[in-house]
């Protein structure tokens, strides 16, 4: 039999049949594919219809048709029957949530700190931005020093503001920034130590890392706030905020060390061999060849541990530091604004602030992950 066949005219692409595209086909495929799916979808839709209007009414101010009290409203509005979230309370106490007990006349100082931070971080995070090295040095070295003198004062005629008066979002950011900046070098050293062939150094690093990773942060903070004063020579007083900073830094450097170690282990052996075959010393081959690659690989992991660190800063409220969560908690017993929704509005506000920071960081980590992935394929 002859099987010969040659196509003379190509078939042009045709539109998909209507039962394959369009919203109805989509709904059938992704909502009602099986009886179980159909039932789940219907229950989910019922749940949405049930839950969304009350949530909308609670969160949205009257201007948008909800029942919440917009900023500028009075406490009487918030106390009214059926009133939603009391945003007026948040806006009235906003400066407390941001600066804590920082003297209002000196707000420009934390504001400058915020501004410098934003100006330095933004180009650091954008992979294409130039001057990375200078930028990094400015951020990791110069910025903390400038911030300390700006916030603490006592120099250049600035009024001294003791750390007891720092609070709110300011303290949350200070703790997480210091934690991040100090734990990076410490974490890298620990990771290198753990990979080291020298037994004593290796053991010390393993013990350090495993100890901090084993215990909850809250016990570390308790320890820092109770034991640090005991460890110091008699008569030295350690600032309360500093104690928390030490605790947070030690804790997060242990986690960071494990992330960096992951990057070191993921590097092919050839890189190590190539580095030593070039005749570079240990520190040169680590600093010039191994670490830059390893750290680049684990940027998503590092960002993820910063998210954890940022969330964990809220624990300092347990040792009596007025971070964002603690200011919100403290303000919730403010009689002037007492209303049925006072506490929940405060938590909602704090939750939204934390969420914005963490979500942004997690998106950034995903962005970097994709970027690194494609970088490999090329």
């Amino acid at each position, binding site marked *: 039999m*002859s*099987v*010969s*066949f040659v196509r003379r*005219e190509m078939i042009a692409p*045709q539109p*998909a*049949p209507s039962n394959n595209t369009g919203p109805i086909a989509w709904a059938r495929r992704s909502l009602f594919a099986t009886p179980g799916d159909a039932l789940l979808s219907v229950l989910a839709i019922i749940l949405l219809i049930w839950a969304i209007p009350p949530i909308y009414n609670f969160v949205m101010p009257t201007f948008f048709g909800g029942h919440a009290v917009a900023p500028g409203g009075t406490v009487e509005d918030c106390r009214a029957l059926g009133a939603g979230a009391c945003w007026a309370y948040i806006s009235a106490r906003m400066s407390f949530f941001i600066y804590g007990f920082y003297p209002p006349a000196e707000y420009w100082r934390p504001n400058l700190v915020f501004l410098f931070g934003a100006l330095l971080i933004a180009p650091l995070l954008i992979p294409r931005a130039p001057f990375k090295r200078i930028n990094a040095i400015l951020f990791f070295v110069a910025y903390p020093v400038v911030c300390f003198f700006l916030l603490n004062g006592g120099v250049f005629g600035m009024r001294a503001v003791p750390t007891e008066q720092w609070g709110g979002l300011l303290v949350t950011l200070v703790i997480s920034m210091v934690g991040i900046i100090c734990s990076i070098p410490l974490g890298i050293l620990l990771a290198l130590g753990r990979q080291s062939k020298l037994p004593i150094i290796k053991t010390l690093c393993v013990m350090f890392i495993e100890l901090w990773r084993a215990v909850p942060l809250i016990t570390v903070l308790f320890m820092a706030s109770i034991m640090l004063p005991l460890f110091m020579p008699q008569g030295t007083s350690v600032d309360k905020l500093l104690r928390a900073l030490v605790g947070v830094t030690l804790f997060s450097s242990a986690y960071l060390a494990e992330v960096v170690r992951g990057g070191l282990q993921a590097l092919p052996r050839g890189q190590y061999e190539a580095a030593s075959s070039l005749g570079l010393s240990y520190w040169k081959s680590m600093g010039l060849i191994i670490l830059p690659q390893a750290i680049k690989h684990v940027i998503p992991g590092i960002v993820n541990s910063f998210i954890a660190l940022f969330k964990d800063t809220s624990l300092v409220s347990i040792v009596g530091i007025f971070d964002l969560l603690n200011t919100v908690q403290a303000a919730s017993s403010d009689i002037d604004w007492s209303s049925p929704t006072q506490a929940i509005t405060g938590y909602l506000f704090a939750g939204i602030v934390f969420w914005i920071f963490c979500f942004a960081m997690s998106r950034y980590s995903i962005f970097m992950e994709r970027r690194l992935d494609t970088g490999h394929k090329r």
Partner: protein
Amino acid sequence: MSDMTSGAAARAINTANMTVSQTDVAIDVIGMHKWYGDFHVLRDIDLRVMRGERIVIAGPSGSGKSTLIRCINRLEEHQQGRIIVNGTELTADLKRIDEVRREVGMVFQHFNLFPHLTILQNLTLAPIWVRGIPKAEAETTAMHYLERVKIPEQANKFPGQLSGGQQQRVAIARSLCMQPKIMLFDEPTSALDPEMVKEVLEVMINLAEDGMTMLCVTHEMGFARQVANRVIFMDQGQIIEQNDPDAFFSNPEHERTKLFLSQILH
């Protein structure tokens, strides 16, 4: 013959052979279309495969050749036309899909062996759980096929311990253990190092000599010349040219076929 122009024409080729009894037909694809969303991947495919026939499908990447054979055991769904395998028409009915899959073996480009099971367990899994064959019997069959693909000594190793060529031979043996009536090959040698291609092709040639119905997507033109009854060339989701291997290689008619062959044969 060759001035036919459309799918209807191709259908005419097939219906011309209608005298053969239906039981001799292994696969019948009639006017089949497939879309990925709005993208028309397979356009009016007509293909009848008789029992014992060995067909090689060639074509540039993205031409839809893999999608076509994946439709035949319903790893992909088609939207228009009919696919009848071993007399069973493929529809949304899971029972029929399982029925077809039991009789159709498939070999993948990336082997897809189960890494958590030994080679022997890989081979006996389906006979035991699909066919209900007693374990001892399934193992005997498995060892028989392992011998056929010349690696009985690897039976108790894990897939990760084998070379790519060995893994692909295990994958073929795994399909054979279900004693399928049809074997589909989806670029079985594309992921292999050059020195391993031969050992896999040898197994496939052996299989062809035993009269297995085979549908192979491959770029191994030597294999096509040696064992195929028919070579099909696909591009842009349609069958462009089809002929017996001698005619196909010596006298390609369509411009695209010529271009493709000149690229692939240098």
